[in-house]
């Protein structure tokens, strides 16, 4: 690949990000501005921002890599990412917005009236956020190496610096604008080369995808177990459950809903998000299929995740192929930057509110400005996953993201669903469910990430924990709640009114 093109594209994306961020800085003044853009973001721009934030390295590079490497069954990943928003819309979009909280721990505390639940949620937000940041930084390193040949740590560092500068300087308002721009940047970056490549493919007589080596399970057919997958049916269902239910529990997704002016706007926003994601996710499988046509065997030392970046040069020769690769590299960087910004924003928000603020106050005697604490939290939120990304061995981008979804599905999904709809949820029940679901899912994640490959059923169950850990978390929350009826929060009725009554109803709110 032509290094100059690639570096130009990446520099351009970083510059656009920083400039749009600085634009928001001038209007970001109060804490409310800082965290949720003063709640004045329109549904359309908010939806673009959610799309921009949500389409991560896993979407831009990871899906194509997974489908390329493991075949048809991986198509469930983009489907699950999209369907997750429908589930979120149907179950929690409006109640979440109407709860009027800034962050997930805010919601938990308001609903369950307990500081310990709040702390538990804070830990989970930080855990899920870091787990999700990990593949973003690894992906950045990967893309940067493909483009420039620089060592992997450089790409991650570029993302860290740009994101910290942006988030710490402007907070959410600048981020909302940045994210909205990023969606359209990413869509263009993946769609335009796809059309060009498909055109070239048709010009070549539209050859079919190939799989080299001995005849084995079919790459193109569902549930064939291609790519060494055991128990394909279980893995498929567990993936669907994790992605469909996990989306609502992702910290950077939730924080976006608070920037809607009201519950109606929250629903309208989510609807637009489903449309925007659907348009985008048509494209990654195209790269996987063309990858099978033109690059049935990857050059040694190349990971499947880089198929999107490697494809143009394999299809087109000369300048045009390199130019498309550069466009794709720029889009991929937009993906790392936007998702990492959103995650950093929410992780930093939680770190700041629940961990750092009280300590800083103690040291400075309330002498500091609130925004300073937040800026410190931003640095912490980014440096830890960067260090972890350097230490752990990368296991497919979309796989790591899938684990973050599984953890979210096993903890925040039951909390949000039961918290929004079930009056008999008790503080003890919620805490028990969070602890059990979190421990099971996190345990499975750790074994998968740190342990070697495990075969057979145990391996499949641990690699895709959502199908069993989510129902267990729900069951624990319900059973323990029923067993502790005296611990229903006293303000439950009032909270339920607030979560479900339309804003047009002039209530006596406090």
């Amino acid at each position, binding site marked *: 690949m032509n290094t100059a093109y690639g570096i130009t594209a990446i520099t351009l994306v970083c510059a656009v990000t920083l400039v749009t961020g600085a634009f928001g800085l001038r209007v970001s003044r109060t804490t409310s501005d800082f965290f949720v853009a003063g709640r004045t973001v329109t549904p359309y721009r908010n939806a673009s921002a959610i799309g921009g934030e949500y389409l991560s390295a896993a979407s831009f590079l990871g899906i194509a890599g997974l489908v390329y490497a493991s075949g048809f069954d991986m*198509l469930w990943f983009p489907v699950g990412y999209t369907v997750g928003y429908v589930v979120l819309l149907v179950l929690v979009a409006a109640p979440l917005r109407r709860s009027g909280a800034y962050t997930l721990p805010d919601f938990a505390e308001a609903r369950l009236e307990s500081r310990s639940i709040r702390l538990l949620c804070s830990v989970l937000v930080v855990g899920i956020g870091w787990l999700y940041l990990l593949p973003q930084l690894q992906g950045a390193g990967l893309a940067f190496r493909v483009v420039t040949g620089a060592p992997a740590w450089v790409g991650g560092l570029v993302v860290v610096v740009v994101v910290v500068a942006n988030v710490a300087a402007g907070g959410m308002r600048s981020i909302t604008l940045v994210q909205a721009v990023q969606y359209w940047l990413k869509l263009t970056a993946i769609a335009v080369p796809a059309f060009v490549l498909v055109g070239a493919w048709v010009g070549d007589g539209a050859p079919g995808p190939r799989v080299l080596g001995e005849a084995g399970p079919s790459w193109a057919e569902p549930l064939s177990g291609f790519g060494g997958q055991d128990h394909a049916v279980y893995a498929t269902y567990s993936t*669907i459950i994790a992605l*469909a239910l996990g989306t609502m529990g992702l910290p950077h997704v939730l924080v976006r809903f608070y920037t809607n002016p009201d519950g109606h706007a929250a629903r309208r926003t989510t609807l637009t998000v489903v449309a925007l994601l659907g348009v985008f996710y048509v494209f990654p499988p195209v790269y996987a299929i063309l990858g099978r046509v033109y690059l049935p065997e990857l050059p040694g030392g190349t990971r499947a995740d880089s198929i999107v970046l490697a494809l143009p040069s394999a299809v087109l020769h000369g300048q045009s192929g390199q130019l498309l690769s550069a466009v794709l590299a720029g889009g991929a960087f937009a993906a790392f930057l936007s998702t990492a910004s959103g995650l950093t924003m929410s992780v930093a928000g939680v770190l700041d509110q629940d961990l750092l603020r009280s300590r800083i106050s103690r040291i400075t005697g309330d002498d500091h400005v609130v925004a300073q604490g937040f800026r410190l939290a931003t640095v912490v939120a980014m440096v830890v996953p960067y260090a972890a990304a350097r230490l752990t061995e990368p296991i497919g981008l979309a796989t790591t993201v899938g684990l973050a979804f599984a953890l979210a599905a096993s903890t925040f999904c039951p909390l949000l669903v039961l918290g929004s709809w079930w009056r008999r949820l008790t503080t003890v029940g919620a805490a028990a469910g969070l602890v059990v679901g979190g421990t099971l899912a996190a345990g499975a994640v750790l074994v998968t990430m740190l342990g070697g490959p495990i075969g057979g059923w145990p391996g499949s169950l641990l690699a895709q924990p959502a199908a069993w850990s989510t129902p267990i978390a729900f069951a624990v929350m319900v059973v323990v709640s029923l067993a502790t009826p005296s611990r229903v929060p006293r303000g439950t009725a009032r909270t339920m009114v607030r979560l479900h009554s*339309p804003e047009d109803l002039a209530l006596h709110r406090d």
Partner: protein
Amino acid sequence: MSPAPEAAAPARVRVTSTRRAAATRRGLAPLSHDIGEQTDLGEVYMAGLMSAQLRLALRVLAFGAAGLGGLPLLFVLVPATRGMELGRLPLPWLVLGILVYPVALVVARYYVRASERVEREFLDVVARR
């Protein structure tokens, strides 16, 4: 205590029947007040709204679960569907790669409209009282 001065005493009223108008007016205190204060009456209305919304949500989810969850089941039960083609293109790829997204959008749109209708009807009921 001395009796109140003549001027401040209320005018005499001849009572001829129960005060029906006044009694209804007290009941006309806005229902939104009942809801905001979680009186028993307000609770009944809120429970109605919530169960209507929840029924709608579960209906949409059941449809989605049957549609998406049914797909792998179909592939398991009828293996012939795995390799089906439409024209020259493999059908499973078309369904899962493209068709899913417009369907998801239509379902989401149906839900948004239906839930806004539920809320509008709720507001109408509250305003009517």
